[in-house]
């Protein structure tokens, strides 16, 4: 066991550290965090407009509220790639130490040139939404890199001394703008001659779709949950690993919402809100454990810890138990800690795949949303029932292990007195 833990720390830590130190991945994670309000507003507006309850439907259509909600969705979630291609370069440029605003402006220009449009009149939103998400990530990643490359090679317009810095700045970004423009015009033209028709369609067909197919499969998602769980066991927050999956699951959620709006069957089982099932009460599924500690613990310390942990557990925060029992590096508690997320993920996937629980609408759920409320918002009453079942299963799995640890600690307490 000791050896397992040391090797976990030896292998996982560098990987987690690499990912969390990677400037691009880091910027991408921050971008989605910053855009979360926009995404949530859009997804709830969509849910409000198309929620399939007859009373609600007649209310929103008769009052005209539906049009307002659809407008909100249409200008937030449905053009999310446009937001990404502005915010991502700002984040990334900051880390590359180049001018963030000019990087964002140039990225936006490049993205729009690559997007098929009607001259002077309209830009269809087809590629501005989730279908254009990977295109936006690629443009938003490559443009700042390109600007940085030009600056490193000292390819820019130099101004004589005494020129005000604002003038100098505007000329400084002229060369990168011009070169970027020329390159994307050529790329847009080359891609338009292919059978797929555009840059966006090529990225969508050749990169986004296969990556989603892989990333949204049960094995890949399960492995990600296991890695997050293992990292936390070593005392490392696994969020950075999760961030790699965010673009995929978010696009999947947007896809489901689009299908909901169109009245079509929902395409994806795993969306970002699928995570409301996987770790009830925090990593290791400790929701029930908090209640076991509070009501059944013989040890004084564990009982105090339980009282401390119940409310945070409802919001998915379990650091008090991780560090307080501690679950951290405790070989015995390793078993339920790792087993629970696997069971929860698999049971949830099967419940949705077999249709016992309907597919999730794709609304974006904040990770701190209270247990059961999160399930209701993600899908509805059936999801809440599933959450209750999962809490029951995980509590039963924790029970014997909790009893052993409680006995150990309470005996120690008595001996120490």
């Amino acid at each position, binding site marked *: 066991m000791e050896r397992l833990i040391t090797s976990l720390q030896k292998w996982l*830590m560098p990987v*987690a*550290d690499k990912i*969390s*130190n990677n400037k691009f991945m880091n910027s991408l994670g*921050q971008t989605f*965090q910053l855009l979360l309000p926009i995404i949530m507003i859009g997804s709830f507006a969509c849910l409000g407009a198309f929620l399939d309850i007859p009373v609600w439907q007649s209310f929103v259509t008769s009052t005209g509220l539906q049009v307002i909600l659809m407008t909100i969705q249409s200008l937030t979630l449905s053009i999310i790639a446009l937001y990404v291609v502005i915010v991502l370069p700002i984040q990334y440029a900051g880390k590359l130490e180049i001018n963030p605003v000019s990087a964002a402006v140039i990225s936006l220009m490049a993205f729009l040139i690559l997007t098929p449009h009607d001259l002077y009149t309209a830009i269809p939103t087809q590629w501005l939404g989730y279908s254009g998400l990977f295109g936006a990530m690629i443009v938003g990643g490559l443009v700042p890199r390109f600007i940085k490359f030009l600056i490193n090679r000292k390819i820019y317009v130099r101004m004589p001394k005494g020129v005000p810095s604002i003038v100098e700045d505007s000329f400084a970004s002229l060369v990168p703008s011009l070169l970027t423009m020329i390159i994307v015009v050529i790329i847009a033209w080359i891609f338009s001659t292919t059978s797929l028709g555009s840059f966006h369609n090529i990225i969508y067909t050749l990169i986004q779709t296969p990556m989603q197919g892989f990333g949204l499969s049960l094995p890949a998602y399960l492995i990600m949950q296991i890695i997050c769980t293992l990292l*936390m066991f070593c*005392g*490392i*927050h696994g*969020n950075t690993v999760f961030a790699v999956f965010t673009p995929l699951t978010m696009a999947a959620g947007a896809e489901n919402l689009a299908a909901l709006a169109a009245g079509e069957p929902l395409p994806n089982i795993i969306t970002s809100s699928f995570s409301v099932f996987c770790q009830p009460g925090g990593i290791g599924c400790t929701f029930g454990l908090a209640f076991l500690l509070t009501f059944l613990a013989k040890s004084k*310390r564990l009982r*105090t*810890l339980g009282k*401390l942990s119940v409310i*945070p557990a409802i*919001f998915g*925060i379990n*650091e*008090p*138990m*991780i*560090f*307080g*029992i*501690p679950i*951290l590096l405790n070989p015995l508690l390793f078993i339920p800690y790792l087993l629970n997320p696997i069971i929860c993920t698999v049971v949830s996937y099967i419940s949705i795949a077999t249709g016992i629980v309907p597919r999730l609408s794709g609304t974006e759920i904040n990770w*701190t949303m209270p247990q059961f409320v999160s399930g209701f918002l993600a899908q509805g009453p059936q999801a809440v029932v599933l959450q209750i079942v999962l809490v029951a299963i995980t509590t039963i799995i924790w029970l014997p292990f909790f009893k052993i640890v409680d006995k150990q600690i309470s005996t120690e307490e008595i001996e120490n007195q």
Partner: protein
Amino acid sequence: MYKIALVCEHGASTGLCVRKMVDASLELGTECDIAAYSLSKLENIVGEMDCVLFGPQISFKLDKFKKAYTDHAAKMTVINSMDFGMMNGDKILKDAIKLIEKNHQ
């Protein structure tokens, strides 16, 4: 007055701890300004703090931060994981004050 920052991934679990520490500081009678921050805020706040405490879950990043902010390395430390788990605000605060006073000497 001592300015103490608690930092973790989202500033959520350390946020729990802050309340306990504020209670402890009132009892001690030491005037302290204690708040929790998410990791992304670190670079904005590190300069004005007397002490920066990291949640044990991100202890593996301590060395990186000490290198990134060499001027402020001495005021950075990781909260003892057992104290953090039991939300022992009193002990965490006393340790922090000890560190600050050591640095001021």
